[in-house]
C-alpha cells in the first residue's frame, strides 16, 4: 500500500535492483478491504477476564451491553437493557438469540456466568475484582437468562456489564492465567484474531456472522509502535489509515494533504493532589490560592499544544453529571489568589516567599519522571505559584520513590472516567480509602463529600444522583483536595478517504479497544 510516488522515486534513483528482488507482497492492494490503525498501547493479553477491553469496544468481544457514540448504554449480547429490581440488588438479563462465537459454538448464559465467575475467582490474576466488589453471585436460571445478585445496591452496575464475554467451552478446566486463549482468543465481536505478533501487530479478520451485521471491511491490522516520533514518521510514510499521535506531532501532519486531525475530548484529567498532612498544602488558604492562581489556559495552549481544556472538577464538562456552577477563570487570577493568602496572615518574607507563624510557604510537587506531560505541568504550577509568593520544588521521581512520600508531598496525578462519576471519584475522595493503595493519597476527609458519594451510588433515581454529584463537586471546590488543571484531548490522524469516523468522549485507558476506532467495523475507505 506504499504510495506510488515512492516507487517512482525509487526507480529514478536506480535502486530497482533492491526493491525488485524483495518483491514486497502486498495483500489486498486492489479492494482496500484492509484498514491499518496504529497505537502505542499494546495490550498485555487479549482476554477480557484479565483486563482486555473491559469498557467495551474491544473489536473482538461483546459485553452484555455496549456504548453508542454518546457513551449511552445499548444492549449488545443482552436482548434489551437489563432489568434492575426495586431494591437494586438483583439484575436480570435476557440474552440475545442466535449469537455464535467465532469458533461456531452458540452463545448462552453459561458463558456469561463463566466469565463473571472467572473474574471473581481468587486464583485468576484479574484486577477487575476490585471493580466488582458489589457482585455476590451470578446465576443462569435458563440458557437465555442471567441473574446478577449484588451485596448492596449499586446504581451504576449496568456500566460494569460492558465486559467482554468469553466462551466457557474454550476455557473450562484450564488455568486461565496461562491459557493460550489469552493470545489467540475467541469472542463474538465483529473481528476474529488471525495473528498477534507481540511488539509488532495484531491482525484481525471480519466475523461475517457478527450479530450487528457484516463488518464493512475484511481485515484490520493494529500496528503497535511505542515511540511517538516513529509512529508519526510511519504515518507520514503512508503506512497507516489512522494513528494516535501526540498533539504537536498530529498538528504537523494536519498540514499534509490527505490526512485529517481529530481532537477527541476525554474524561482524562491532570491535577495536583495536595496532601492534608503537609503544613503548607494542608492550609485551606494556600490550596484555594493555588486553585485560583494557576494559569490553566497557558497550560492548555503551551503544554498541551491546544489539545485540552481547563479542568475545575473530576467530572468532565461533557458528562450529564457536571455541575455548571463549579468552574473558574481559565487564566491566572493572581490578585484574588494573593488576597486569599494576605487575609489569613501569609505575608511575604525578605526573599519574597510568604511566611506564616514561622512556617515558610514552600512545598514539593512530585511527578513520575518518565511522564513528560506531568513534568511540564509541574513546572507550570511552580512558575504560577512563585508569582503568589509560594515556593514549589518540582521533583521527578520513580513510583517507588513517590509512594512513601505521598502523604506529605504534593503529586501531579491523572485519572478520570467518562462513564459514571462513581467509578474513580468514590475511591479517590472517599475518607474510608484514605491511605489505601493509590486511592485517597492526600488523606482528604469530608463528611459532606462522603455522604454525596454514597448517595450517588445508593440512589437509582437519575435526578437524585445528579443532585448528589452536584453536592460532591461543590464540596470539592470548597475544600480543594486537588487543584484540577486540564482535561486532555486524545489526538488522532486519519487518512481523509476513511469514512465513518465518529469520535466519542474517551477514557484514560485506550489502546486496541476504546480508541477512535471503537466503531471500526463500520468504517469504509474510499
Amino acid at each position, binding site marked *: 500500500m506504499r504510495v506510488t510516488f515512492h516507487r517512482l522515486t525509487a526507480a529514478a534513483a536506480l535502486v530497482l535492483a533492491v526493491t525488485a528482488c524483495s518483491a514486497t507482497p*502486498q495483500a489486498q492492494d486492489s479492494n482496500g478491504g484492509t484498514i491499518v490503525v496504529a497505537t502505542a498501547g499494546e495490550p498485555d493479553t487479549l482476554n477480557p477476564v484479565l483486563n482486555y477491553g473491559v469498557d467495551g469496544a474491544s473489536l473482538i468481544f461483546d459485553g452484555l451491553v455496549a456504548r453508542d457514540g454518546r457513551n449511552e448504554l445499548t444492549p449488545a449480547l443482552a436482548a434489551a437493557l437489563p432489568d434492575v429490581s426495586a431494591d437494586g440488588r438483583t439484575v436480570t438479563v435476557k440474552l440475545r438469540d442466535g449469537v455464535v462465537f467465532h469458533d461456531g459454538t452458540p452463545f448462552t448464559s453459561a458463558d456469561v456466568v463463566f466469565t463473571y465467575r472467572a473474574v471473581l475467582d481468587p486464583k485468576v*490474576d484479574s*484486577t477487575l*475484582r476490585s471493580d466488582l466488589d458489589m457482585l455476590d453471585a451470578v446465576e443462569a436460571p435458563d440458557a437465555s437468562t442471567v441473574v446478577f445478585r449484588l451485596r448492596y445496591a449499586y446504581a451504576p452496575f449496568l456500566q460494569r456489564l460492558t465486559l467482554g464475554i468469553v466462551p466457557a467451552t474454550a476455557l473450562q478446566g484450564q488455568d486461565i492465567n496461562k491459557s493460550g486463549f489469552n493470545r489467540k482468543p475467541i469472542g463474538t465481536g465483529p473481528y476474529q484474531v488471525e495473528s498477534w505478533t*507481540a511488539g509488532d501487530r495484531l491482525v484481525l479478520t471480519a466475523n461475517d456472522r457478527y450479530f450487528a451485521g457484516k463488518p464493512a471491511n475484511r481485515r484490520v491490522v493494529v500496528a503497535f509502535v511505542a515511540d511517538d516520533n516513529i509512529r508519526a514518521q510511519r504515518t507520514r*510514510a503512508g503506512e497507516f489509515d489512522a494513528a494516535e499521535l501526540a498533539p504537536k506531532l498530529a498538528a504537523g501532519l494536519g498540514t499534509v494533504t490527505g490526512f485529517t486531525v481529530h481532537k477527541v475530548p476525554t474524561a482524562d484529567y491532570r491535577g495536583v493532589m495536595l496532601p492534608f498532612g503537609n503544613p503548607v498544602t494542608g492550609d485551606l488558604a494556600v490550596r484555594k490560592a493555588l486553585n485560583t492562581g494557576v494559569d490553566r489556559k497557558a497550560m492548555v495552549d503551551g503544554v498541551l499544544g491546544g489539545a485540552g481544556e481547563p479542568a475545575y472538577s473530576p467530572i468532565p464538562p461533557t458528562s450529564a453529571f457536571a455541575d455548571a456552577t463549579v468552574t473558574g477563570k481559565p487564566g491566572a487570577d493572581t490578585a484574588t489568589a494573593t488576597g486569599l493568602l494576605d487575609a489569613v496572615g501569609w505575608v511575604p518574607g525578605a526573599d519574597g516567599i510568604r511566611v506564616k507563624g514561622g512556617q515558610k510557604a514552600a512545598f514539593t510537587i512530585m511527578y513520575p519522571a518518565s511522564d513528560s506531560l506531568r513534568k511540564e505541568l509541574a513546572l507550570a504550577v511552580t512558575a504560577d505559584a512563585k508569582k503568589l509568593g509560594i515556593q514549589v520544588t518540582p521533583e521527578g521521581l520513580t513510583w517507588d520513590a513517590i509512594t512513601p512520600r505521598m502523604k506529605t508531598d504534593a503529586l501531579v496525578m491523572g485519572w478520570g472516567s467518562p462513564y459514571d462519576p462513581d467509578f474513580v471519584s468514590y475511591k479517590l475522595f472517599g475518607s474510608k480509602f484514605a491511605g489505601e493503595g493509590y486511592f485517597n493519597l492526600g488523606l482528604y476527609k469530608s463528611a459532606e463529600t462522603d455522604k454525596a458519594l454514597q448517595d450517588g451510588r445508593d440512589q437509582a433515581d437519575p435526578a437524585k444522583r445528579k443532585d448528589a454529584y452536584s453536592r460532591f463537586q461543590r464540596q470539592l471546590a470548597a475544600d480543594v483536595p486537588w487543584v484540577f488543571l486540564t482535561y486532555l484531548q486524545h489526538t488522532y490522524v486519519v487518512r481523509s478517504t476513511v469514512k465513518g469516523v465518529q469520535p466519542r468522549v474517551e477514557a484514560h485507558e485506550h489502546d486496541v479497544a476504546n480508541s477512535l476506532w471503537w466503531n471500526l467495523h463500520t468504517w469504509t475507505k474510499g
Partner: protein
Amino acid sequence: MSARRTVGRRLLVAVPVLAATSMGMFALGAASPYDPAEQYAGAAAFTATDENLAQLRANWGVDDPLPVQYWRWITNLVQGDLGWSITRHEPVTSVIAARAGWTLLLVGAALALVLVASLLLGTVAAYRRGGWLDRGLRAAAYAVEAMPVFWLALAAITVFALVLGWFPAGGLTDIAADGVHAGDVAHHLILPITVLAVSQAPWFLLFVRDSVADSLRDDHVLAARGRGLPGRTVLFGHALRTALLPFLTLIGTHLPELVGGAVLVETVFSLPGLGAVTVQAALGSDFPLLAAITLVTTAVVLTANLLTDLAYTAADPRVRLDG
C-alpha cells in the same frame, strides 16, 4: 586434542559463571523496589484494592523468601521449564523462541557487514595512508563514533524512508502483508542492519586501518616486498594476515556492545526482537524472563569468547591455549 580439552574446561567454568549470573539476577530482583503486582496491573493498579494485589502476589509466590524462589526456579530449569513471563503472559521459552531469531539475524547480518566492510576499507585506507580515501574514512568514522545509534536510526528513517521512500520506516513485514515472506523481511531489514553496522563499524575500521598500517612496516612485509612480490599479495597475504590476530579479540570484546546497539535499533524500527521485551521485563519486574534472557546472553558471550580463542590458535601457531 588441546582444542577439545579447552572446550571441556570452558564448559566446566561456564556452569559456575551461569549460576552466579542467575543468582545475581535474583538478588537484584529482591532489591528492586518495584512491586510486580502493580507492574502487572498497569493503569489498573490505581483502581485495584490492596487485597486484590496481595492475592496476585500470593498466586505467583513472589513474596516467598528469596532462596525458596531461587530453588523453585532452579528445579524447574533443570526440568527444562524456564518459567512463566508475567509481563508477556506466555511461557518464557516461547517468548525467547519467537524473538531470539530476529535479534540473532539482525546482529549476525550486521556483524558480517561490519567485518567485510571494515576489513576491505581499512586495508585499502592503510595502503593509501594519507590519501583522500583514508582521510575521508577516518573523518567519517570519528563522526559516526560520536553519534548515538538511535539518532543514526532516526536520521536513516528520515532520509531513506520518508524523503527517498526506498525502504519502509519500520516493522518486520509490510503492515498489510498476509504473512512473513523472505523478500518482504529482507526489504524491511536492510535499513536496520545497515544502521547497526554503520554505528559499530568505526571501531573496527580504524582498528584494521591502524594495524595494517603498522604491519606494512613489519620486517616480514618489508622482506616480502623486497623479494618483489606483487603489491596486492603483500597487502592481503602478508600485512592483513598479521593484523587479523588482534582483530579477533576486538570482535570478542565488542560483541556485547553490538547486542546493546541491537536493542536500540529494534526499538526504533519496531522490530519484534528480544530488545523490546528485555526493557519491558526489566520495568515490569518480570524476573523469570530477565533471568532467562541474561542466561542466554551470558551463554552467547561465553561461546563467542571460546570461538575467538579457538580461532586465535588456528590463526597463530605461536598461541597455545591453557592446558
